[in-house]
């Protein structure tokens, strides 16, 4: 059966209402950035101890999710699953939107965001950040070309090649994002090659959760048919990704627990570090993994769309908690200047560094999410990203 793609219909009122709401959040985010630019980072909760704060939690989450959300398209193109083909355009659109939102937050948090042009013209090729400048811009180009090859009949012959390129590029991109932390020899919480593959598997999970949420919301609002086959396939895949993420988290902590020199850090993150163990166990593990797995697979909930939507939302919240524990928790634990000794100084050596995010930096982070939302809402309204129907009779469950 021929699948037809159409712009999203639905009432103008709800479209402009949604756009207005997201737009307002985006404007508030930009206002926050302007305040930070004017007064300096003194108005944020970030310090010389916690140098990366809430903006990085949101930015890294969005960038990781951006690469992961492209998976749906990759499954169609690279792994040849016909079933996923009608789902692919939205996947590439979300990839562009999430990356744009994440990068906006990252750029506007810079001490000198006015020097963006410097970051584009001066490169130190030993820096993971410099690699990422190329990885991010290349990703935009490839994802855009990917969409082009799906929407323009003349470009269809290139779809497979572009799809392969985008797949390998997205793996490199998340390797780059994980390596921002993985290549930091100074910090006990990072300094591990495991972070690169762990970020990749996290991206699978975050990206698919966001994909499912947007898909269900778009089809729900526009009253287009969305069959159980699509939901079942995607939610089962999400379950696998959540489990795989949990496995990597387990291996990471088990390795650290085995090494005596890491005991202090592990005790801090898992047991006595205040907000960090709470966010780890309650946020990352329970809300972000155990509960969604239950919702996706338990006989009483697994048939319910609401349960699937809730599971996706919980994966996103758990992902943000995981980012917070990784990024902020990793910095809050003091650097081991003299291992085995107790140290103190006027620069807060040897003590756990407190961090309370301010409203401005949180608004900047939420603003980035809103920008991603604005891009998606407009694109779905004006371009043909979504099939008119994803009913069970239309999709091909055997491929």
């Amino acid at each position, binding site marked *: 059966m021929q699948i037809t793609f159409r712009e999203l219909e639905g009432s103008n009122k709800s479209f402009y209402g949604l756009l207005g709401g997201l737009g307002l959040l985006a404007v508030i985010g930009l206002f926050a950035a302007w305040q930070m630019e004017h007064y300096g980072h003194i108005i944020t909760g970030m310090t*010389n101890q916690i140098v990366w704060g809430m903006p990085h939690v949101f930015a890294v989450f969005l960038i990781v999710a951006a690469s992961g959300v492209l998976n749906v398209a990759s499954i169609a193109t690279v792994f040849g699953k016909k079933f996923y083909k009608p789902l692919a355009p939205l996947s590439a659109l979300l990839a562009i939107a999430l990356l744009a939102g994440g990068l906006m937050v990252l750029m506007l948090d810079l*001490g000198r965001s006015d020097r963006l042009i410097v970051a584009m013209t001066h490169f130190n090729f030993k820096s993971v950040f410099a690699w990422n400048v190329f990885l991010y811009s290349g990703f935009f180009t490839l994802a855009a070309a990917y969409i082009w090859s799906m929407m323009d009949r003349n470009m269809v012959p290139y779809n497979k090649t572009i799809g392969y390129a985008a797949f390998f590029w997205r793996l490199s991109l998340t390797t780059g994002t994980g390596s921002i932390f993985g290549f930091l*020899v*100074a910090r006990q919480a990072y300094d591990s090659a495991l972070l690169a593959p762990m970020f990749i598997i996290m991206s699978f999970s975050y990206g698919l959760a966001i994909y499912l949420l947007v898909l269900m919301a778009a089809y729900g609002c526009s009253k287009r048919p969305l069959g159980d086959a699509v939901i079942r396939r995607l939610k089962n895949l999400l379950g696998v990704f959540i489990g795989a993420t949990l496995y990597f988290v387990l291996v990471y902590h088990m390795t650290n627990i085995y090494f005596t020199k890491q005991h202090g850090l592990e005790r801090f993150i898992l047991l006595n570090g205040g907000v960090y163990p709470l966010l780890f166990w309650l946020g990352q593990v329970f809300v972000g993994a155990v509960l969604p797995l239950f919702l996706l697979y338990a006989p009483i909930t697994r048939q319910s769309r609401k349960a699937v939507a809730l599971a996706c939302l919980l994966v996103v919240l758990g992902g943000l908690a995981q980012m917070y524990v990784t990024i902020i928790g990793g910095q809050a634990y003091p650097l081991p200047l003299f291992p085995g000794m107790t140290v103190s100084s006027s620069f807060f050596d040897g003590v756990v560094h407190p961090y309370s995010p301010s409203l401005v930096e949180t608004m900047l982070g939420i603003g980035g999410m809103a920008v991603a939302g604005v891009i998606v809402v407009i694109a779905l309204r004006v371009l043909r990203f979504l099939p008119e129907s994803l009913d069970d009779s239309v999709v091909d469950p055997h491929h």
Partner: protein
Amino acid sequence: MKDFDTYRRRFVTSVLGIAATTALPVGVMFWQTAQGKEVDDSPASSKIRWGMLVDTTKCATGCNACVSACNKENGISGEVTDTSPQWIRKVNVTNPENGYSFTLPMMCQHCEEPPCVDVCPTGASFKRADGIVLVDRHICIGCRYCMMACPYKARSFIHQPVEDQLAEVPRGQGCVESCTFCVQRIDAGQQTTACQDACNAEGHQAIFFGDLKDPESSISKQLATYGAKEVLPDLNLHTGVRYQGI
């Protein structure tokens, strides 16, 4: 025709007048700049490696002379909040098992293989040929990746507008900064740092500064006789700052 000549003359005169009026303040600005201290503008030489040796057995607990001198030399306020810059700080170290303790000044260790330089996306963090690790304030974008990478927590981010800067030590909001080994002194031909002078003035003489590549320098002789350690030696960064008694 004559009218046109008059018009042309008037036009040229007014253009020159406007140009001269505009040029005056610009000229004054350049003149002021030219009045800055003259520095030796020959490039840093790789025949030298500036280094520092701290004898912790002479470094006195409670003495903060090096910190105050650094603040004065570089125009730093000296506040000790969690957002204020500290280029040098006194770290008190105690062995919890037996109570053995010592104190030492901690600052940028001017590594031979600096992690901050590795991670800097724009190349703003750089190491001079003479071993001094600096931040180029013109291309620092304030990403703070260097602060994440520094094992010694030696760098500070400037969280708010900077007032009362010194002419020789330009600083500014949104950039990262750290100890420069008093590079403004070195480039003016001096051979000591402010912290070292202050330590000597206090009578402790715990800080030696000099060329690590010159076997005749006092720092090299001291190192050859007594030896010294790097902080976190297993990182193999070959720091330019060494400590005795740690």
